[in-house]
C-alpha cells in the first residue's frame, strides 16, 4: 500500500474484494485480518537491480524502465536456439527464482513494455502486426494527464487515440504523448539507456519471514546467486571467493565460499553454497541475506580487465574475524556495544558484528552518555544472591555500603514478554557500591520486588 491506498493484493485478498486502488480503511473493513505492508521503494529498486543483473545471463543489453526490465534479444537468438527457446528459458529461469513475471516480446521496446504491463503475453515479431496487438490497450498506459484528456474525449484505447487527427491531438495532449504512441508503434526510433552493471557485486535480500533452518536458505539465496551469475556473465568474469552473510536480529553469520577457478555458473555456485548450508546450524533465525563477491577474475578464455580488489575496511575486518573465529570458535568472537537503557544488564550488548548506530540521534546519545553514573568494569552474567545477616548483605564477610542507594526502576515494557533475554524485565532495585572484606569494591543491589533480597551484580576492580 502507499498513500492510504492498496497497490497490490494477493489472491486471497482479492477474493475478499480487496483490489488495487481500494482505500486502506475500506480494505480493512472488508478483511479485518488483512496484513498490510507499506511500499518500500528502496527495496524495490534493489530488487530491480538484482533482476537486471540476472538478466545479464541472456543479453548484455539490458535496460530498466520503472518496474520493467527490457532485454534486447535480437542478437542472442542463435545462442539460445531461437526465439521460442529463449523465451521458454527466460520463463523457466524466472520461475526457478520464484519471480512472477509478465513477459511480452515486440519489435519496439515501448510496445513490449506496454504489452507486458497489460498482461498480454504475446510474442510479436512483425512490425506489421504490431498495431493489431497495441490497438486494444488502454490509454492509461500514457502519462496521466494525456490519458485523462483522451478519456475526456471518449477515446479509451490506443487505437481510438490513433484515429484522432495527429496534429490536433498533439496540440491537446502534448507532442510528447503523441511521440510516445509513435515510438510504440514503431514510427519513431526509441533508443534506451543501457543498464550499467555495478562495479562490485554486493546484494542484499530481506527474507519475507525469519528462517530457522539453514538448508531452507538455499532457495532464498537462489536469487542472489542468479543475480551474481548474470552480473558475472555480462562482465565476462568469474568469481573466486564470495561471502554469504546471514543476518540475524542482532548479529550476523558469515559463510565464505571459495572456488578453485573463477566461475560464473549459477548452478555451481549454488552447489557449493548448498554444501556449506547443509552443515550449518543456525544460532538464531535469519532475517536477511547478503552476497558479496570478494575476488573476481577474468574467466579463462576471455579477455577482460582484471577488476580491482573489492578491498576496503570491511573486507579486512571480515577476514580477521574469520581467522579468529576459525581459531577460537565462531561464537567466541564478540563485539560489545553500548545500549541505551537504564537497566545495567541491558546497557551492554555483545554481538557477532560491530553494531550499527543506535536509534537516538548521536547528539542526544552523547549528552546522555556523558552523564553516566559510575558503573562497574565487570558485570556478572546473572546477579548472585547474597546472604543477609542482621539486615546487611554478607559475602565472605560483611559488606560496607559506601554510596547509594541508586534507585533504578525501568523496563516495565519487557515484563512478561516472550523472547527477551534474561534480565530484561521490569527492574526495581536499589543499587549500592560496597566494599567487601578483602577491600574490593563491588556493586550490589537490594531487590525491591517480592521476595526481595540482596544481590551482587558486578566488580569495580
Amino acid at each position, binding site marked *: 500500500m502507499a498513500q492510504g491506498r492498496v497497490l497490490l493484493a494477493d489472491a486471497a485478498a482479492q477474493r475478499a474484494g480487496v483490489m488495487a486502488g481500494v482505500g486502506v480503511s475500506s480494505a480493512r473493513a472488508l478483511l*479485518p485480518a488483512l496484513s498490510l*505492508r507499506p511500499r518500500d521503494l528502496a527495496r524495490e529498486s534493489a530488487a530491480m537491480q538484482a533482476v537486471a543483473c540476472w538478466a545479464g545471463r541472456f543479453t548484455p543489453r539490458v535496460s530498466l524502465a520503472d518496474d520493467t526490465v527490457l532485454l534486447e534479444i535480437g542478437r542472442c537468438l542463435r545462442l539460445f536456439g531461437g526465439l521460442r527457446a529463449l523465451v521458454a528459458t527466460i520463463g523457466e529461469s524466472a520461475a526457478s527464482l520464484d519471480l512472477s513475471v509478465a513477459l511480452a516480446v515486440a519489435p519496439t521496446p515501448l510496445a513490449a513494455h506496454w504489452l507486458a504491463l497489460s498482461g498480454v503475453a504475446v510474442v510479436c515479431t512483425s512490425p506489421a502486426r504490431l498495431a493489431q496487438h497495441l490497438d486494444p490497450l488502454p490509454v492509461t498506459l500514457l502519462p496521466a494527464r494525456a490519458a485523462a484528456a483522451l478519456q*475526456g474525449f*471518449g477515446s479509451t484505447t490506443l487505437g481510438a487515440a490513433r484515429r484522432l487527427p495527429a496534429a490536433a491531438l498533439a496540440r491537446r495532449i502534448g507532442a510528447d504523448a503523441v511521440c510516445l504512441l509513435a515510438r510504440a508503434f514503431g514510427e519513431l526510433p526509441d533508443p534506451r539507456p543501457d543498464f550499467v552493471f555495478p562495479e562490485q557485486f554486493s546484494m542484499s535480500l530481506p527474507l519475507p519471514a525469519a528462517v530457522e533452518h539453514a538448508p531452507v536458505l538455499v532457495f532464498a539465496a537462489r536469487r542472489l546467486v542468479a543475480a551474481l551469475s548474470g552480473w558475472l556473465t555480462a562482465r565476462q568474469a568469474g568469481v573466486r571467493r564470495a561471502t554469504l552473510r546471514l543476518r540475524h536480529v542482532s548479529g550476523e553469520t558469515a559463510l565464505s565460499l571459495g572456488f578453485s577457478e573463477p566461475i560464473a555458473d549459477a548452478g555451481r555456485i549454488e552447489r557449493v553454497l548448498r554444501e556449506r548450508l547443509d552443515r550449518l546450524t543456525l544460532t538464531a533465525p535469519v532475517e536477511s541475506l547478503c552476497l558479496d563477491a570478494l575476488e573476481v577474475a577474468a574467466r579463462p578464455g576471455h579477455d577482460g580487465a582484471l577488476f580491482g580488489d573489492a578491498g576496503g575496511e570491511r573486507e579486512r575486518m571480515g577476514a580477521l574475524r574469520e581467522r579468529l573465529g576459525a581459531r577460537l570458535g565462531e561464537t567466541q568472537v564478540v563485539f560489545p556495544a553500548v545500549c*541505551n537503557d*537504564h537497566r545495567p544488564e541491558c546497557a551492554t550488548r555483545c554481538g557477532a558484528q560491530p553494531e550499527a548506530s543506535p536509534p537516538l540521534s548521536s547528539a542526544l546519545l552523547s549528552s546522555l552518555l556523558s552523564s553516566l553514573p559510575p558503573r562497574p568494569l565487570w558485570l556478572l552474567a546473572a546477579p548472585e544472591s547474597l546472604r543477609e545477616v542482621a539486615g546487611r548483605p554478607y559475602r565472605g564477610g560483611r559488606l560496607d555500603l559506601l*554510596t547509594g542507594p*541508586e534507585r533504578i526502576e525501568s523496563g516495565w515494557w519487557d515484563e512478561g514478554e*516472550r523472547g527477551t533475554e534474561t534480565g530484561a524485565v521490569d527492574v526495581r532495585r536499589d543499587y549500592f557500591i560496597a566494599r567487601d572484606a578483602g577491600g574490593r569494591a563491588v556493586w550490589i543491589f537490594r531487590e525491591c520486588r517480592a521476595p526481595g533480597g540482596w544481590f551482587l551484580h558486578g566488580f569495580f576492580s
Partner: protein
Amino acid sequence: MTNELPGYAELHCLSNFSFLRGASHAEELVARAQALGYEALAITDECSLAGVVRAHVAAKAAGLKLIVGSELVLADGEKLVLLAQDRAGYGNLSAIVSLGRRHAAKGEYRLTRGDLARGVPDCLALWIPAPASAATWAATAAWLAEAFPGRAWIAYERHLLPEDRDRLAALRMLSATSGVPIVAAGDVHMHVRSRRPLQDALTALRLKTTVDSAGRALFANGERHLRSRARLAQLYPSELLAETLRIAERCDFSLDSLRYEYPDEVVPPDMTPSAYLRAETESGLLRRYADGVPAAVRDQVEQELALIAELVYEPYFLTVYDIVKFARGRGILCQGRGSAANSAVCYALGITEVDPAQSALLFARFISRERDEPPDIDVDFEHQRREEVIQYLYDKYGRERAALAATVICYRTRSALRDAGRALGIDRECIDALTSSLAWWDSREQLPQRFAEVGLDPAAPRVVKWLLLAEQLRGFPRHLSQHVGGFVISRGRLDRLVPIENAAMAGRSVIQWDKDDIEALKLMKVDVLALGMLTAIRRALESVGARRGRPFVLSDITREDPAVYEMIGRADTIGVFQIESRAQMAMLPRLRPARFYDLVVEVAIVRPGPIQGDMVHPYLRRRQGLEAISYPSPEVRAVLERTLGVPIFQEQVMQLAIVAAGFTPGEADQLRRSMAAWKRQGGLGHLRERLIEGMRTRGYDIAFAEAIYRQIEGFGEYGFPESHAASFALLVYVSAWLKRHEPAAFLVGLLNAQPMGFYSASQLVQDARRHGVVVFSPDVQHSDWLAAPAGERRDAVRLGLGQIGGLGAAAGLRIAAARPFRDVADLVRRAALGRDDLDALAGGGALAALAGHRRQAAWAVADAPLQRDLLLEASSCQDDVILPALSEGEDLVADFASLRLSLGRHPLALLRETLTRRHYATTAALAVIEHNRPARCAGIVTCRQRPGTAQVIFLTLEDEHGLLNVIVHPRLAERQRRELLSARLLGVLGVVQREGGVLHLVAGRLVDHTPLLGALATSSRDFH
C-alpha cells in the same frame, strides 16, 4: 517510633496540563496530597495556568491549600518555578506566562532572563540548578538573588541517583556563598509511583520514539511522585522540609479572589449603565410594539430591569447589545439564545426575536439571585459572516482585553489507543487496523473482540499493556485549541487574569482556560456562534426581495400560517431547521405541530434526554387525547400545564424541584448542573433523597415522586432549555414558511450556505425538484458564482458555477462578470481563464452552450488559447472532430464527480431494471405496503446513525423516489457488520413497520450491491 512526621508542602508539581510530561490529573494530585497530609500543594505546569482552575476546585472540595505557580525553562536552560503570593503576584505571573507564549509559536514558549530582569513582583522563585551548568551556578545565584530579593530559593530535588550526596553538598555550599536559602522539592510528575509506565510512555511520545528505544531519556526510576512524609523525612534533611512550610505560608492567593470587571466603553461617556440600558430598552419597545406596549410586557420589563439593577448586570447586557447592534448595522442576521436571551429586555434590545407577548415563557430562571453568576447569552450569527463580528471585537477591545476561550482537546478512545500503541512500538499497521475497525459505538467491553478480529491476542502481554496505557490516557488533555466562539472581554488587561496564547489561526489569541473554568470562576463570556441556517435564511430572504423588487425581511413573514403547519405535520421537512433529521421526521406525523408552541416542544422533545426519560410517549398520548391529564397539585399544574403534564424542558424540572420538593432556586440550579454531570461523576444519590423526601413531605405520593426522579435521571445532560427551544422554534417556522411558499428562493439560500444542515446538496436539489422547482445546471452563459433564481421565474433555480468542483472562486466571479460569451476563445480571453479552470468547466458541463456535450467541450477546451498564447488566435476552429456523446450512465458518473449531484435521472433509475429483477421495490411502492408485511428495498446509503445509547442503528436509503428509513437491530449489526459499515448501495430484506403515519423497514438481511454503482461517487453522513 516518633509520631512526629515533618510537615511538608510540595512546591514543584506538574499536572497533565504539562502536555506529555505530567501523568496525573490535578484532581488525583490534590487527593493524594491531602491523603498524605501535606500542608499545601503547588500546581506548577510548564508555562501554563491551564490546569489551575480544576486544581482549585478540587482543592477547595478537599480542603487542601493550593498554591498557584508555573515552571519555566529559560532560553539559557535554567529552570525556575514561580509561585504567586497574592493577587498582584498572580497577575504578574499570568502576564509573564503570556509574554513567554506570545514570543513563540503555538505550543511553545520563550523567556529570557531579560524578561524577568524587572523581577516578577509578589512572586516567589525556586531555582532548580542543572548539573550541566555547574560552572555558572554562582553567577546565576547572584542574578536570582538580585531579581527576586528575599524571594528566591535554591531547590534540592532528590530522586535517588548516585550523585545525590555530592549534589546536596554542592548546593549547600552555593547557598552559603550566595545567601540564597535552600529548600526541598519533588519535581513531581505523577501522583503515585505506579503511574511510571504512563509517564515513560508520555516521555517516549514527546521524543517521538518508543519506550523500548527511549533508553536513558526516560527517568531512571519512579521517584517523581508525591512521596509520603515518612519517606521524605528519610530522604531530605529536616530543615529543608521545614523551609517548604515557610514558603507555603508566604503564599496566600486563592482563585476565588479573582474579580471580574466588565468593559466600560459600551456605555456613552455621559450616562450611567443603568440609564443607558433603560433608554435603549424604551426605544426598543417603541420599535417593537408600534401599537403600544401590552401591560403584561411592561410589567415584565420593569421586573427584569429591577433585577438587573440589583445584581449590577447592566454592563453585560449592554456588551451583548453592542455586538448585536454592530451585526445588524452590517446586515448580518443574528439571534440570541440562552437563559437571559428570552427576556423582555432582550427582545426590546433586539438581542432575541422571541416576542414575550406571544409566548408564555416563565422567565424567572433567566437570572438567579442566588447563583450570583453573570447571565448566559449565546448569539448565533450567519456562519459565513461571523468572522466580521470576531474582528470587530478584537478591534474594539484590543488583543489585550479580548480573547477566545480555549477548548481542551482530550484523548478519546481512538487517539488514546493510537498514541499508547505508538509509544509501545506496536506496528503502525496493527494500530490502524484496530482503530479503523472500531465503530464509534463500540464500548470498552467490546475491545477484546475487536483485538481478536484484527489478529491480535488480547491476552498477549504487550496487548495487555497497550490496553492499560490507553485506558489511563483516555481523558488526558492533549492540547489546547480555540473554542468555537466563546469570547472573554475584560475592563483591565486580560492577561493579568489568565494567560493568553497564540492560537493556531493567525490573528487569534486564546486564553488558557476553557468554558468550564470560566464558569467556575464566574467570568463573563459571550458566545459568538455560527449558525448555517441564519446564512441560508438571509440569502433566501434576499432572493425573494430581489425578485419582488422590494426588500423582504423576517418580519414580513406571516406567522401561524396553517399551510406551513400542514406541511410540517406531513414531515415534508427536508432542509427545514432542526426538524429535518430522520428522528424528527419520524416524530412530526405523530406530534402534528399546529402552533408556534408546538414547534418549541418539537425541538426539545426529539432528544436523547426526553426519549430516555420516557417523556415522549406520555406526551404524545395526551396530545392525541388517549390519556387523561391530571395534576397532583395546582403548583405542579402551573409548571407542567403547557406541556400536558410532562416535564420536557430543563426549566420545568428545576421549577418542579422548587415548588414540589422545596428546593431553593440555588439548589435547583445545583440540580441542573448535577443532571448534566451525573453520568460522569456517578449519580444523583443525595439529591434523589432530598427530592423524594421533599415531595413526600409536601403531600405528593411516592409513585409521582419516583416517576419525576426517573425522568430527571433520563434528562441527563440532554435536557433542552425552553429558551433555546423558543429561539430555535422561530427559525424552524421561518425556514418552513420559506420552503412552503418560496421553495426556489429557499433552495438558493440553502445551496449558498453549504456546508450546513443534515442533507447534501444532491438531496436538497432532488427534494426541491420533487416539489416542482426547476433546476438548471451551471452554465457560463447564465450562471453566477452562487446559485440564483433563473431569470424572472419564481419556480426555477440556476445552479452557480461554485457547484463545479475544481473551479476557483476568482475565476468563477470573472466569468459571471463578463458573460455572455461568443465562443470558447472569447470566454478564455475575457475571463482570463487558466487550464484547470477550463478543465473544470468542461467536466461540469458548463460549456454546453458554447461547445456542446462534455466530450466535445473537452476537445474544444484542450486546445483553447490560454491567456499566455497571444498569437494563437484562430487555431481552434480547424479541428472539426465529431466525438460521440456520453451514455446516460457515463454522464451521471461525470455529474457526480464534478457537481456532486445530477440533474439527470437518479442513478437508481438507471439500475431499476436490474433491481426489479432481484425483486427490490421502490421507496414509493413501499409506502403502500401494510404493517408487518415483508418487503425488499434497495438504495444508496446516505446516513448511518446510532443515537445515544440506543442499540439499534438507523440507516437512510435513497432511490429515485425519495428516502427510506431502515432499522437494523444489534444482532444483525454484529453479524453483517461489514455490509453495514461499508456498503454504498445496500439491499435490505425485511418487514415494514408502520406507526402513526411513520414508515420504517426493519431489516432482516442486508445485501451489498455496491459493485452495481461502478465508478459513481457517493457519500454518507455517519454520526451519533
